[in-house]
Each structure stands twice: as structure tokens, then as C-alpha cells.
């Protein structure tokens, strides 16, 4: 197995994901409609009731729409990560996962390729969202659109790895509704995506603590700072740590001797 083999496999896996993405235009549109609804309707409605004090990285008072834009970028990636997870479960049910897992490359590499392919899709979605937000009047510093790229890649990888891990636990597609209720919604609402953490702390210290432990909070803050040309070391390290943990657990989950695959009670 030489380097070219690894590169060709990476190209093949990402190419397949992009082809599937192109074929599923409704997936792309729905991934955009969701955060845009929050931006155009929810944020507009709450603009006057939710005042946001001056907090880093912002240097002045900002509109609520400006505050939630990084949170909605995180939302795009969170849903994309779960969508990738859903497609992994679908692939497993449809059998095409077997094609991937029986190819002659280390399993961690195959899963990482699959993860990277999903992240590429989520980054495209995030930039299209940023473009629409810009047309709507939410402007970040010009260089911010470049400095946000590594943050989007890292947060996308972390959330994709979480999706990968979940897919190793979920046996059937029908069980996916539970992921919405028990993973996506708590992660999104218990974070700084919609409101600053100090606001949560005013209402409930417990919820504040939970939000602090939520890796999605740190992914959103990483994106927020990066969009305003700043680098938040702590959020970066926590997101990296969460990525390493989720990816390692997912690789174990898909490991034929240790993982969930053989605990599911029979070949399928």
C-alpha cells in the first residue's frame, strides 16, 4: 500500500461524497434553509428583546443577527455531521458500507477519509450561508472570511467525528430520531450559539456549567473569534481534544474485534 494508493482512495471517497451531494440537491437546500430561517425570522423577532453587551471578539454593541451568525455556522456543521452519520447508517443498511470496510486500507484511514469528505461538504454549505448573510447585511471583516476557514474545518471535523461515533452505535435508521432529541437539540441549545454564556449563567448556573462542558460551545466560539480575525487558543485546544476523543472512539466502534459491529448480533 503506497502513498498513491492512499491518495487515490481519498480522492475516490471524497469524489463519491461530492457526487452524492450533487445528486441530493434537496439536502443542500434544506441544510441552508434551516439556519436562514433562524437568521431571517428568529433573530429578527428577538432583535429588540435580546440585547447583547460588548463581549470579545466584538468591539462594539452588535445586533442579535450578528451575534448568532457564528452559532448558525456551527449549526450548519452540526446538522451536516449528523447527516453524515445518518448516511453512514444508511450505507450500512444498504450494504455499501461493506464495500468501504473491505477495501485494503487501514480502517482508521477509510473512516477519516469519509469524515473529511463530509467536512468539505459542510464548509461549502457554511460559505454559501455566509454569502447570503453578507447580502442580508451581516458583514465580518474581509480577512475574517479567510481566517474562519481553518476554524470551520476543525469544528466540522469534530462534529463529523461525533456523527461517525454515533453511527457506530445506531443499528437502524429508525433509531435516528433519538439522535435529534438527545444529541442535536441539547448540543445546540446548551451552547453559546444563540445566547452568550453569561446570559445563561444569570438564569441557571447548572445550565451554564453544562454549556461550558459542551464541545459545541467551543466550536462555535472558535468560529466566532476566527470570523473576526482572532484566534482563541482555549477553544481550539478543546475542539481538538474533542475531535481526537470522538475519532478514536469511532475507530474503536468500527473495529471488528473491539467495536459495536459484532455486538449487534449477527451479520447484515
Amino acid at each position, binding site marked *: *500500500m*503506497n502513498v*498513491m*494508493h*492512499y491518495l*487515490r*482512495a481519498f*480522492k*475516490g*471517497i471524497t*469524489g*463519491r461524497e461530492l*457526487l*452524492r451531494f450533487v*445528486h441530493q440537491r434537496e439536502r443542500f437546500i434544506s441544510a441552508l434553509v434551516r439556519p436562514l430561517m433562524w437568521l431571517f425570522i428568529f433573530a429578527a423577532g428577538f432583535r429588540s428583546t435580546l440585547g447583547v453587551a460588548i463581549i470579545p471578539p466584538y468591539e462594539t454593541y452588535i445586533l442579535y443577527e450578528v451575534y448568532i451568525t457564528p452559532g448558525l455556522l456551527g449549526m450548519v456543521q452540526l446538522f451536516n455531521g449528523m447527516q453524515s452519520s445518518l448516511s453512514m447508517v444508511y450505507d450500512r443498511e*444498504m*450494504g*455499501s458500507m*461493506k*464495500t*468501504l*470496510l*473491505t*477495501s*485494503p*486500507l*487501514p480502517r482508521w484511514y477509510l473512516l477519516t477519509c469519509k469524515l473529511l469528505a463530509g467536512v468539505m461538504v459542510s464548509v461549502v454549505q457554511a460559505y454559501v450561508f455566509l454569502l447570503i448573510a453578507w447580502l442580508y447585511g451581516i458583514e465580518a471583516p474581509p480577512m475574517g472570511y479567510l481566517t474562519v476557514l481553518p476554524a470551520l474545518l476543525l469544528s466540522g471535523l469534530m462534529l463529523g467525528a461525533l456523527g461517525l461515533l454515533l453511527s457506530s452505535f445506531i443499528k437502524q435508521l429508525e433509531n435516528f430520531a433519538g439522535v435529534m432529541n438527545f444529541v442535536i437539540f441539547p448540543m445546540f441549545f446548551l451552547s453559546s450559539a444563540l445566547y452568550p454564556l453569561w446570559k445563561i449563567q444569570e438564569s441557571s448556573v447548572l445550565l451554564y456549567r453544562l454549556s461550558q462542558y459542551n464541545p459545541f460551545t467551543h466550536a462555535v466560539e472558535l468560529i466566532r473569534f476566527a470570523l473576526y480575525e482572532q484566534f482563541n487558543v482555549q477553544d481550539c485546544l478543546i475542539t481538538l481534544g474533542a475531535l481526537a476523543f470522538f475519532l478514536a472512539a469511532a475507530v474503536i466502534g468500527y*473495529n*471488528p*474485534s473491539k467495536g459495536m*459491529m*459484532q455486538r449487534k*448480533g*449477527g*451479520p*447484515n
Partner: protein
Amino acid sequence: MSNIPALGINGLSYSYGPKKALNQVSFNVSAGQCAILLGPNGAGKSTLFSLITHLYDSREGHISIAGHNIKTDPCQALARLGVVFQQPTLDLDLSVAQNLRYHAALHGMGRKEAAKRIQEELQRQGMFERAGEKVRQLNGGHRRRVEIARALLHRPRLLLLDEPTVGLDVPSRKAMVDHVHELTRAGDMAVLWATHLIDEIHSEDRLIVLHAGCIRASGSVPEVLESAGATTVGEAFEQLTLRREAA
């Protein structure tokens, strides 16, 4: 090279919790041989295939493909393995060629080499004219042919077929059975074909009868008939499986 079996299985056992699915299974399949793994539903055929393809891992026993241990050297072993699973594994929304190119990439083939082999294998299956069509538009028989073309694309030493004729009409079944036998005669590739359909067996095949996770008989067709004291494969199969069930 000829002394190394295309597939070597030695003392293989596997359990789902307390339920033993395979118990001390051992057999070899040599190059140029078509081995039919015969067993009723629930005999352990699919579990055995999941272990050979490294989807599962067993702590007990050894599996080697062309001399490469699947546990310690999985990449080398899987590089020499072609598989057609019982369940279709093609991406329905991609074209035939896109599906094959994906497989070629996973096996590290360059674009030119992949294009050449895709053409060769699709022509061999009589499917080249349909390379641009979406898999969804193909019927069951044609999809199976594409899966065989895909499994052969990287020139494996061992081809695994897990009940590939399920759901096919009689002419498609016959064509597939004949074609796979032709493949073993042509080169040094071995085939392990899991089935419970007795009419898929040719007289020159090697038979392995699996029942309740154990090998009940293994050898050429005459050898298995003799050991079972039967005159037909159907009779032998019945004796080797039903009789023991009754006992």
C-alpha cells in the same frame, strides 16, 4: 506459490454471546478451485463470510488469503479478495462506471489502469454498453453482473460469493453459475460460493457442507456422496443436515 492456498481456514470459532455460530471450522480452497459452501439458512455461512472479509474478527482460529493472515495483515489479505455480498452493495444513484471507479480508487488503481480494467470486466459481463447508466435503472441480474465485474476489477486471488443468485430469474442464475465456473477454469483464481441451492453445483466442484456452525463434510462431489452414503447431492445434503438435526 502454488502450495499456498487461496483461502486457508484453521480452527475458526465464533459466537454471538452464548450462541455459537461457528465451531472449529477448518478447510482450504486452492487456486483454480470452485468450492461450494453448502448449508441451510442459519448454518453460519454469512458469519463465516463476515470473518473472511474482516467485517468481524474472531479470537479463535486463523484465516489467511493467499498466505496473508486476515488478522495480522488485513490490508494485504483484503487486496487479494473480491466479494459479492448477498445484499446488493452498489450505489443506486451512481452510474455503473462511477461505482466501478470508486472501487478501483479504493484498491489504489490509477485512472488509466482503472478505465482499462473497467472496460475489460464490463465487456466480459456483457455490460459495457450500459456503463453510463445509473444502477437504479438496471434489473437484478444486471446489477449482479456489475457486482461481479467490480469484485474482479482488482484481479483477486479469491472470489467470495455469498448467495449471489438470490432473487434472480432462472436464465440469469444459470448464466451466473456458468460464468463463475468458467472463471476458475481460466486462471489461478479460487472461488468460494455460499449457497443452499443444490442445482448450482457442478460435478467438478469441491463441496463443503456447513450445518449449525460445523463442517459436516468436505471434499469432491463423489467423496461427499460416499461419506454420506448417498447417490445425489440433494440426498447427501439432506442426510448431513436433517439427520443430525433430528439427532
